[in-house]
């Protein structure tokens, strides 16, 4: 009697496990199908915002865990923008918690920055430990450009990355960053202009 009961018990557990496994497996598979194809975009954004390989990996991992946690409430539309929004917010939280106050501040004073004129955006060379001279000495055009972008203030850097590298629309960028479209447009314009100006300055500096 006892043996029969135990047998039934373990069998029914087997069946129950199959049932719950299917639900979770479906979720994991749907996640892999919808979200993981955008892992490069996620990593690229995190890498540009944290400016560190190791930190970008931590941030993306954390962001994916969050995404998986909230995946049930996700409608399946625009998975790319949905994931990037989570990555972007995870970056922001992470930088506030782990980076010097000055760097976190650059993320906070967004309103003032938008008011600033493009000409007044100064490259924050200190953030990367590079002197302006070192940037100017970088002869290779592509490397120089990438260093200049990395040193652009984060609110300009992020919209440029989303637009130029991820081909996001103004509306998608507005949703990811959490600002009105008009703000996205003015940041893009000013970001591009100041990057272009810095690029030309460095070009003349590197080729005396």
């Amino acid at each position, binding site marked *: 009697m006892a043996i029969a009961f135990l047998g039934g018990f373990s069998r029914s557990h087997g069946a129950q496990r199959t*049932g719950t496994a299917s639900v979770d497996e479906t979720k994991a598979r749907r996640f892999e199908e919808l979200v993981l194809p955008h892992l490069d975009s996620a990593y690229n954004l995190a890498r540009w915002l944290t400016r560190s390989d190791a930190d970008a990996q931590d941030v993306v991992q954390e962001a994916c865990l969050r995404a998986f946690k909230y995946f049930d409430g996700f409608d399946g539309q625009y998975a790319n923008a949905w994931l990037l929004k989570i990555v972007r917010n995870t970056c922001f939280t992470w930088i506030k918690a782990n980076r010097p106050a000055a760097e976190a501040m650059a993320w906070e004073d967004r309103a003032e920055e938008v008011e600033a004129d493009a000409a007044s955006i100064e490259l924050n060379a200190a953030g990367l430990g590079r002197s302006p001279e070192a940037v100017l000495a970088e002869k290779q055009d592509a490397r120089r450009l990438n260093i200049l972008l990395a040193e652009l203030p984060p609110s300009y850097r992020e919209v440029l990355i989303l637009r130029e590298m991820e081909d996001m629309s103004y509306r998608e960028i507005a949703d990811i960053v959490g600002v009105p479209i008009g703000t996205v447009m003015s940041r893009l314009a000013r970001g591009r202009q100041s990057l272009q100006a810095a690029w030309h300055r460095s070009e003349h500096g590197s080729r005396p």
Partner: protein
Amino acid sequence: MNCTEARALEPFYDDGALDAATAAAYDAHLRGCATCRAGHAEALAFGQVLKRDLQRYRAPLELRTGIRTLVAPARGAANLRYLARGWNPVALAASLALSVALSSTLTAEYVAAPNDSRVVEDVVSSHVRSLMGDHLIDVASSDRHTVRPWFLGKVDAAPPAVDLAAAGFPLIGGRLDYVDRRPCAVLVYRRDKHIINLMVWTNESGEPEGTEAYTRQGYNLLRFAQGDLTFWAISDLERGELADFVRRFEIATAASPS
């Protein structure tokens, strides 16, 4: 429109974000103003520099696999929770019904012939290898008259290399690889910064007709056949975009003699 206004509109003009009337006013201003014309040309040139030189980082392989294992063991954890709770006939019946309902959709999408799974794994490995090291391209060219002959004598099937740049999928080259226990030709295409590997070999009897879609490790794969050739397209593009690539490739190769 004066110069200040024109300069403010310039980036949006290039993005195609201006309405027709404003764009026309901008054009009119540019025609009459050499300074703004020069500024516009400079901004356009810088846009090209951005497109060409900005570095797009790729997720390292260990991050990709790490996230997959983070997501997958959620199954195991959930099971333990249910085990601890013990036997519950109502939950059991519900989960059984659910698993039956789910299994039919799963079968349609994921279950492939066991023979296929090795090919799929091989295709994914080849794709990942090509992105990790320097071995993405053996012959770098967008010219079909360079890429196609390069394969002759190296593999049993010289692939129909067509440049799809006009459709936004430029051909960037080709390479040799070893997939499913045979050397195969790989055409390498690009969509913006995403790489598409298109693997080609002569099909053997028993390979299914039609198109099949797979998703593995966050990559989308599409298998299709054309004449006596089997193709596997793989990329991190969304499935719809990859299907668009395959459709355009099929149209272009059908139109041009190989």
